[in-house]
């Protein structure tokens, strides 16, 4: 690994924050992390994040780590709507590669703690993070669930790579494994990962906020490779550029969709 994932220090990679959201499947959180915010009706959507290093080659992609954080909050403190789907888009100037990276299966991760999941699927680990969800059970007061997230390279399904988001909470002991489908599309955000929050999670959890660090450097056939790479494709006379780093779209119960995107800069080497 190019750098140990998570555990404070500087932020790592990109994609998984989305997963976390999905996993938590629903929650209400008091404070949202920094970043850009939009408000639609009573709902505030926040998204922040960055890549590291900021200084990148203009042409040949270099390994990067991505940190994303964000979530939902209601302006008046009322219960958040349930999130049914989370999708995160990334610009095509980034490169996502799982070539030669070991993969893990949902079955291997099911009903495991974070420690167990790591020991079983460590070679496939590509990110980590955390998620907070508010849980409202019938005839009980709402409570928050704080889950530790791990992201693993998953198997191929219908020609698309799956990224497996593993969420584990100690209190109450809960494990969720969500498969996020990695897809390539046209448009500004040509790389997307998305997952439906399974009905099996029940109607109680309400996603509140997440933090996700993604990135993994590994050796394959004697060559160093990276799960995430990026360039800073700016003309020679410029020293810095600006790009849309990520866009998150939540599909809420009832079909309403809310999304927000963030712009960040890079520096050319």
């Amino acid at each position, binding site marked *: 690994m190019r750098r140990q994932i998570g555990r404070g220090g500087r932020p790592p990679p990109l994609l998984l924050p989305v997963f976390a959201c999905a996993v938590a499947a629903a929650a209400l959180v008091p404070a949202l992390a920094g970043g850009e915010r939009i*408000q639609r009706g009573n709902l505030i959507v926040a998204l922040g994040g960055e890549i590291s290093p900021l200084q990148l080659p203009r042409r040949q992609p270099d390994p990067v780590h991505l940190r994303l954080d964000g979530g939902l909050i209601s302006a008046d403190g009322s219960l958040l709507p349930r999130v049914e789907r989370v999708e995160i888009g990334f610009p095509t100037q980034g490169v996502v590669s799982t070539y030669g990276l070991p993969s893990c299966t949902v079955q291997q991760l099911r009903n495991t703690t974070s420690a167990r999941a790591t020991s079983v699927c460590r070679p496939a680990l590509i990110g980590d993070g955390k998620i907070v969800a508010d849980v409202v059970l019938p005839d009980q007061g709402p409570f928050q669930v704080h889950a530790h997230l791990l992201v693993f390279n998953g198997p191929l399904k219908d020609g698309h790579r799956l990224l497996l988001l593993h969420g584990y909470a100690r209190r109450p002991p809960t494990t969720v494994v969500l498969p996020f489908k990695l897809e390539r599309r046209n448009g500004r955000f040509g790389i997307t990962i998305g997952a439906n929050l399974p009905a099996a999670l029940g109607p109680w959890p309400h996603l509140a906020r997440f933090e996700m660090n993604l990135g993994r450097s590994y050796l394959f056939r004697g060559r160093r490779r990276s799960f995430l790479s990026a360039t800073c494709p700016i*003309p020679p006379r410029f*020293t810095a550029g600006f790009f849309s780093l990520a866009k998150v779209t939540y599909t809420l119960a009832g079909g309403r969709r809310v999304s927000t995107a963030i712009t960040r800069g890079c520096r050319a080497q």
Partner: protein
Amino acid sequence: MKTTLLMATIAVGLICAATAAAEAPTRGEYVDQLETLCKPDALATQRAMKGARSDVQAERLRAAAPKFAKAAAIFGSTVKEISTVPRPPADGERLKKWFGYLGQQEGYLVKITAKLRADEAIQAQRLTARFIHNGNLANNVVLAFGFEYCSFKFSRYG
């Protein structure tokens, strides 16, 4: 006589105040009105800026300049238009701050245009960074308004 005059003055004052209050829009009405004005201009900005990113990428700064100039003109006229719309009294201070940011945004667009015309890449780059930062600050001020077309979106600028 004096008492009658005083009473009449108070009555007229009360009527005027009531009329003004009745004319002041709610936040929802204000947002609807501004969005109606901002939408065509936001779409026009997107059209005007089409290809600007490619121009800058190919270092055709002078070709990109007219596109920024058009965007600046559209932005300026939008701000002028929406600044005349009566504001909800409770949001007066907040909107004053927002319009301050919008004025700066227009200024940045004008300056970026000038730097592109002068083929000064680094200066244009620095101003663009400020333009983006300032736009995000503007958005934060009116977050609760839930603007779509009246909010700053970098993606509209190429």
